């Protein structure tokens, strides 16, 4: 069904961004504008998007319908037509529902967080643009439009991570995010091109690709599927392109929340789900994705256990949770993976916003042991943070349990016992490091309690709303074995090539195992950290605390080598060989020219001699020519 509403989902935040940009320029050049105006524009526009999405969602409840909107023909070459068309099917609407909703809440939170900042207006301009880019990505009807959004979120993440650009480290972090993403984007682009080559159709919309995919040679599809996933590795911070994510914590906290919960990192999972018809045909690549996800989950969780920066712990936990999502989508359980995206968005946004609240209250202190030394009185943040920690640890009936457990059950059913085992072990680690964070920050004994209560409503209200989601979102997809209806699975049923059909007893056993494992993790964390002496913090030495030296390894192997190669090419190949060759040709011409110039010496007799020689030559030539 064609509806003009679809474009307004994207346009609303885009217009907001443009308005804020304009006002911000006015603010900087002419006269100060109150923060209220920026905040109003910045928060109302995502709300409009959310309300439109909600309307479409409700309409989709009543009737089976897929919304589309044709805007214009973008590229038309020969038979090839690339339409600027938006697609609002079940997947896109599902995704944009929580992207806009949680994005909106984070915008509200940002009002309180960014209060008094010089770049308040600029921040909201970027923030709205970020949301608009993500919505372009979600509502795209073909991979090319998807790529616009894909690049848009990359750009915005760069702008926002390097938001405090006066500090060089932040700029470097922004660069790192951008460059790591470029590597992935290159893969994505190659993947799209390969796919275009493989299907050989006159349009590139998802429906055309799906219709023509059976004609395409399998090898090309495998290649394309792999390359597209390289893009997802970059965006969704999976091994080996994850290094930007922890550094991305340099930006203000609302950005971390937005990147980690609603936009950017979920783009990879969404993209794989979008190409479900492709990936369900090439199950080997799917398994590969699942393994990459599993190892990313484990790897990040191990690193997270020894980090001391509160936001970096959360960043690694995001990477770990994204690993779970990729296990889900890689094994063909797209709705399960997306459900984890959905629940994760709630509790991860909440955790980041809670962490942001603490960080503000303690004047930008991020080390958990130092936070513990000056604990602030923050009852609402304390409560919501606890909810988030429980949810991410996978304790029923909080939302994280259901989504994570469904993924593990899917792995178990597919016979990928290694992935299942890694997942279970990661669940243990997750419970451990999240409760380590919680116990150190909120429970461990401390002598000094700062009488500081953060009261800004714009910070606490979004937290409370999200906490409801974190507690209850799991019931949307309650598995049958617990008497639920698996609503999300049904809603996204056209994606799934597999269905969970384990026996009830097996499912119970799996659930019990994961709950026991999570409780064990909490217990270990309790033993070790509940009475932890925060005045003697853990050492930050050792291989885990140093993140397995991956950054150093990349620096040595990739950065330094390519630097050396570049220097070699510059100094030797370019200057010596190429310049030498070209310059010697030039020198030859110049010295030859100087010799020629010597002839023109204005000496009459010399000229006359030359004339004579020339005439003789002509006569000899004519003599031979005429055969005289």
């Amino acid at each position, binding site marked *: 069904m064609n509806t003009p509403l679809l474009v307004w989902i994207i346009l609303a935040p885009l217009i907001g961004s443009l308005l804020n940009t304009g006002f911000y320029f006015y603010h900087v050049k002419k006269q100060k504008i109150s923060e209220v105006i920026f905040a109003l524009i910045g928060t109302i526009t995502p709300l409009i998007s959310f309300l439109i999405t909600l309307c479409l969602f409700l309409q989709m409840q009543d009737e089976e319908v897929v919304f589309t909107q044709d805007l214009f023909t973008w590229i038309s070459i020969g038979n090839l037509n690339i339409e600027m068309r938006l697609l609002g099917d079940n997947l896109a609407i599902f995704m944009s529902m929580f992207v806009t909703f949680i994005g909106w809440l984070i915008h509200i939170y940002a009002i309180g967080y960014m209060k008094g900042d010089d770049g308040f207006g600029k921040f909201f301009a970027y923030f709205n643009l970020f949301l608009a880019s993500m919505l372009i990505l979600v509502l795209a009807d073909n991979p090319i439009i998807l790529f616009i959004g894909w690049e848009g979120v990359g750009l915005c993440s760069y702008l926002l991570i390097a938001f405090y650009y006066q500090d060089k480290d932040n700029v470097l972090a922004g660069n790192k995010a951008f460059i790591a993403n470029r590597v992935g984007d290159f893969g994505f682009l190659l993947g799209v091109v390969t796919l275009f080559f493989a299907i050989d159709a006159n349009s590139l919309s998802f429906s055309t690709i799906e219709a023509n995919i059976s004609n395409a040679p399998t090898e090309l599809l495998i290649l394309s599927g792999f390359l597209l996933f390289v893009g997802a590795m970059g965006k969704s911070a999976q091994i080996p392109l994850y290094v930007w994510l922890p550094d991305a914590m340099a930006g203000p906290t609302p950005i971390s929340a937005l990147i980690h919960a609603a936009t950017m990192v979920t783009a990879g999972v969404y993209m794989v789900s979008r190409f479900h018809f492709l990936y369900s045909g090439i199950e080997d690549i799917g398994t590969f994705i699942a393994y990459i996800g599993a190892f990313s989950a484990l790897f990040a969780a191990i690193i997270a256990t020894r980090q001391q920066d509160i936001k970096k712990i959360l960043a690694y936990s995001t990477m770990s949770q994204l690993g779970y999502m990729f296990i889900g989508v890689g094994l063909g359980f797209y709705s399960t993976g997306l459900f984890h995206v959905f629940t994760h968005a709630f509790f991860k946004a909440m955790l980041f916003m809670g962490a942001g609240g603490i960080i503000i209250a303690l004047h930008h202190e991020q080390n958990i042991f130092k936070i513990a030394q000056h604990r602030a009185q923050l009852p609402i943040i304390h409560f919501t943070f606890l909810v988030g920690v429980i949810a991410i640890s996978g304790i029923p009936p909080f939302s994280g349990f259901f989504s994570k457990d469904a993924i593990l059950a899917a792995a178990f059913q597919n016979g990928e016992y290694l992935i299942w085992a890694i997942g279970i072990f990661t669940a243990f680690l997750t419970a451990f490091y999240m409760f380590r964070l919680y116990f150190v920050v909120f429970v461990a004994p401390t002598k000094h309690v700062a009488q500081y209560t953060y009261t800004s409503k714009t910070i606490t209200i979004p937290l409370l709303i999200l906490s409801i989601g974190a507690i209850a979102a799991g019931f949307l997809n309650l598995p049958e074995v617990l008497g639920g209806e698996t609503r999300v699975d049904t809603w996204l049923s056209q994606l799934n090539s597999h269905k969970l059909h384990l026996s009830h007893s097996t499912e119970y056993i799996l659930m019990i195992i994961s709950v026991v494992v999570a409780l064990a993790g909490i217990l270990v964390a309790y033993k070790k950290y509940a009475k932890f002496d925060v005045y003697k913090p853990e050492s930050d030495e050792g291989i885990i605390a140093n993140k397995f030296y991956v950054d150093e390894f990349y620096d040595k192997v990739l950065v330094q080598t390519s630097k050396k190669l570049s220097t070699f090419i510059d100094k030797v190949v370019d200057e010596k060989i190429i310049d030498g060759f070209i310059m010697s040709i030039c020198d030859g011409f110049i010295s030859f020219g100087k010799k020629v110039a010597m002839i023109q*010496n204005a000496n009459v007799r010399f000229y006359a001699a030359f004339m*004579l020689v020339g005439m003789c030559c002509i006569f000899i030539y004519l003599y031979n020519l005429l055969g005289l």
Partner: protein
Amino acid sequence: MISLTSYAFVSMILFSIGVIGVIARRNIFVIYMSIELMLNGITLFFVTFARYHFNLDAQIISILVIAIAAAEAAIFLSVIILLFRSKKSLDTDVFNTLTQGENS
């Protein structure tokens, strides 16, 4: 009777002496006289062939050459005077002002 070849040979010698004079001598007067020699060589050639073929056309041309040479002499001598006034010399190598003195 002196053969045609002998006449041709003499006129070619005259012409060659003229050419060598133009190329090898530096004095403008000598150059001028060498040019006259070349003209004379050619004129001799014309006259010889005119006699040989009993055709007066060539004779007319040779008289024309002599007339032009006379006119040329008048111009040439006045040019030489002008040149001498400007440089106080009759050496051709001095008159290389067209190179703006770059190579001299």
